[in-house]
């Protein structure tokens, strides 16, 4: 019973992708500047200045049929405006993101292809995403729907406090007439607070129209610029997570492990590679 609920949540709901977001309890509505913003909140694409490609793998509770694999690409359109007057560097025409994802095994699987766009406007990031989602049951056929999502991020206190909002599937796409089955419509609102240069605190509320509300929280610590240590917790799935991130040149590696009190271990791994002129890089 619990397993079905958890796997459905993982299913066609809003994805939490990237080892960083997962280690932070998936409190990811405020995260920006990394390629996985394409899945977590496309508004966060707005501060990307270099083309980046990312790979992501996830395994839940050591069950192969709950695997997720995703590949994402973020492409800044046009020229990069350098950082000035307290504002980070940005591209004048925004950033395009693309992502393909597969969840599940042979009996049941979901495939999703999405295109996203993020743009930075002053202290605000805005973004949107369009998904083509396919749900397949072995021998029972499959369904395809389109889902549209919107996101925004605003710096309430420059470099200290950020508000992030992500509304997934505002079109309320329908999967089947039977029991009016729809792709979940989920609203996530989060706050990110930086009490110092090295520390990031996250808290987020999540509400699926048809399910109980949940709270998520995460903490990230960067002892040096290249290393990050993270902890997180999500109340709805009752899962505690922890992870590390390493930056090596143009590569970014993130690993996270989650522990569910009843179901056990989950693992998440992502790899990012960026190319292009590095002096324009926005270090978060």
């Amino acid at each position, binding site marked *: 019973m619990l397993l079905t609920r958890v796997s459905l949540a993982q299913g066609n709901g809003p994805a939490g992708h990237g080892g960083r977001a997962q280690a932070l309890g998936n409190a990811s509505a405020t995260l920006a500047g990394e390629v996985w913003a394409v899945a977590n909140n496309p508004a966060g694409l707005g501060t990307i200045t270099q083309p980046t490609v990312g790979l992501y793998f996830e395994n839940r509770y050591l069950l192969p049929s709950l695997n997720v694999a995703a590949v994402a690409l973020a492409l800044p359109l046009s020229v990069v405006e350098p950082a000035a007057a307290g504002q980070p560097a940005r591209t004048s025409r925004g950033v395009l993101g693309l992502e393909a994802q597969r969840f599940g095994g042979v009996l049941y699987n979901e495939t999703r292809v999405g295109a996203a766009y993020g743009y930075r406007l002053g202290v605000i990031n805005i973004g949107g995403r369009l998904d083509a989602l396919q749900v397949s049951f072995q021998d029972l056929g499959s369904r395809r729907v389109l889902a549209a999502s919107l996101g925004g991020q605003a710096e309430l206190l420059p470099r200290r406090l950020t508000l992030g909002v992500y509304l997934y599937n505002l079109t309320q796409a329908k999967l089947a007439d039977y029991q009016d089955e729809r792709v979940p419509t989920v609203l996530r609102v989060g706050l990110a*607070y930086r*009490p*110092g*240069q*090295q*520390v990031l*605190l996250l808290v987020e509320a999540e509400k699926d129209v048809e399910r109980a509300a949940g709270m998520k*929280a995460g*903490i990230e*610590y960067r002892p040096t610029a290249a290393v990050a240590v993270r*902890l997180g*917790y999500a109340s709805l799935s*009752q899962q*505690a997570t922890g992870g590390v991130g390493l930056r090596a040149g143009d590569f970014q590696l993130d690993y996270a492990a989650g*522990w569910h*009190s009843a179901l056990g271990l989950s693992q998440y791994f992502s790899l990012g590679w960026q190319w292009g002129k590095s002096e324009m890089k926005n270090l978060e």
Partner: protein
Amino acid sequence: MPALATAQNYPRRAPDFERLAQELFAEIQTDQIPYEDLYGTLLTLYQAPLNLNTAGPEELRALPLLTEKQVAALLRYRQANGLLLSVYELQAVPEWDVRTIARVAPFVTVASNTPNSARGPLWQRIKNEENNAVLLRYRRVLQRQKGYSPVDTFQGRPTLRYLGSPDAVALRYRVSHAHDFSLGFTAEKDAGEPLAWRPGQHQFGPDFLSAHFVLHEQGRLKTLALGDYQLQFGQGLLLSSGLAAGKGAETITNLRRASLGVRPYAALLENTFFRGAAATYRLAPRLEATVFASRKNIDASARLATDSLAQFDEFSSSLVLTGLHRTASEIANRQRLSETVGGGHLAYLSADGNLALGLTAVGTHYGMGFQKRAEPYNRYEFSGQNNLAFGAHYSYGWRNLLLFGESGRSRSGGLGTVNGLLASLGPSVDVAVLVRHYDADFHTFYGNALSENTRPINESGFYLGLKVRPLARWEVSAYFDQFRFPWLRYRVSAPSHGQDALLRVAFAPTKTSLLYAQYRARLKPLDLPASLSGRAVPLPGQQVRHSVLLYADVQPTARLGLRTRLQATYLRADDGLPWRRGYILSQDASVQLARRVSLAGRYAVFDTDDYDTRQYIFEQDVLYAVSVPALYGQGTRAYLILQAAFNKHFTLWLRYTDTRYRHQATVGSGLEEIMGSARSEVTAQVRYRL
């Protein structure tokens, strides 16, 4: 030198225990928190303050008020600038803010590190020590309780009554000097206990007698304790004493325990100490060995086995920890079970003081077989006469990180482990992580490592604490704790798991004022009454409790202090059942009437739906006493306390409390029952400094 020492003296004021308790404990939800023990520890520190010039890192950590960064900063400062000259100099130590200094000041002193022998021979040092006092306390409930009424008969047999008078009397004497000596004597008679001379039953006048003599720093003999003492090693998994504040609003510093070793015992709790001898000897500059032996008789109820196949002919099924011996049956259980404890500890401390390692062994022998009642939840509890537990602990401080832990194994094969990390992530952020696991058959009688249960047994848990100072004067602290009980517990008839979370926002607008708001939520399953579950077999319900606390402590003028406190609890026994609530609002005022006379009082109004939503509230009591009454029903609670110092030697305290209930014909239950709707109590205490 003495003249210089007086010139440097900081006027040490008695700590405000009520406010400190308020800051250390999040919210009391059971009677079982050993706050009295912790209070005793703070008092010991107040009586024999820690010398900041000689204190090592472990001793500084034992003050539950300093962050890891502050401990490290003080040690660095001492290394760079030499000895401190006065407590005022603490303001120059990096990371030490005014609030911390104000909180710590009652428990510390700054003295030269003159060797003890330079101050004359021991008897002269004891004779000349200023830190000494005789204390006599009297307490009595004014209304007549049922236990003191004349005996009548029920079904031809006389009913149970208290054998002693309703007066409670305590007498204590103590003289001590930190790092030198401590000498103390305590006698106590609780209300209802008879005074008697019965050497056969080990009673010599008052019900409880305790004495100790402890010497420190005698060459390589670091500590020698005779009489009553306590032991504190590692994280308190096997041996712990009075330093366990547990989960509270100090979400970071409460977690770690300091490995303090042998400590004198001078409190009034009748079951939290060892009686015998203990010694710590310095084997090598970095290596210390402690051996200890204790033998005392403890209270226990005894039963005779009716089953001829039973393991023991005569066995004890429960230890009685109240320390009350008022009725014939309580007296019969008094000191029935002999307990012999012996063991040792080996400690290593690295040259820079950052790495500490230790090994502990504790053996216990009971004079008669011990077996808990044959209930399913006692399936893995200790039974037998002997227990032996081994443990190893570590603590490693590196920059602003402290890594610590302890693991142990008891004779049953049960394992227990607790491991934590404290880190200062930045100038304004501290985090703490603690992972614990105690097997259902891990048996430790004197351990008190951090746990949701009252003992470290049958539990796994993960704790995350956070403290942030986003702006000057503001502090946000939070913790989240997730725990699991793999086996049944008392009143929980299934394996269960739960969560506990706290958020406190505190604002200190001035040096003396403090405002805060606190929210705590806890999910902890508990068996539903049969009437609610509708089943013959008990079934745990998902009991949820939400608590809020608003607190304001202000000092409008130098002589007047005002405190307001609002506490509310919402409790639900299971999903879908109705919420029950409890509420209390209290107002305190304290006035400095004259230079040596102060008066304080409180008026509180409470209203709770039932006993489960009862409210615990800290109260000011006479010095060295602690009062945290549980209030339920509807009514008011008021107290008035007067403190007057007549001269340098003589101080008097008087306290009167009054609780009035609405819609109740009786107060209390059993032999404590009072006919009527009010309960009042008077306390008088005198202190004489020799």
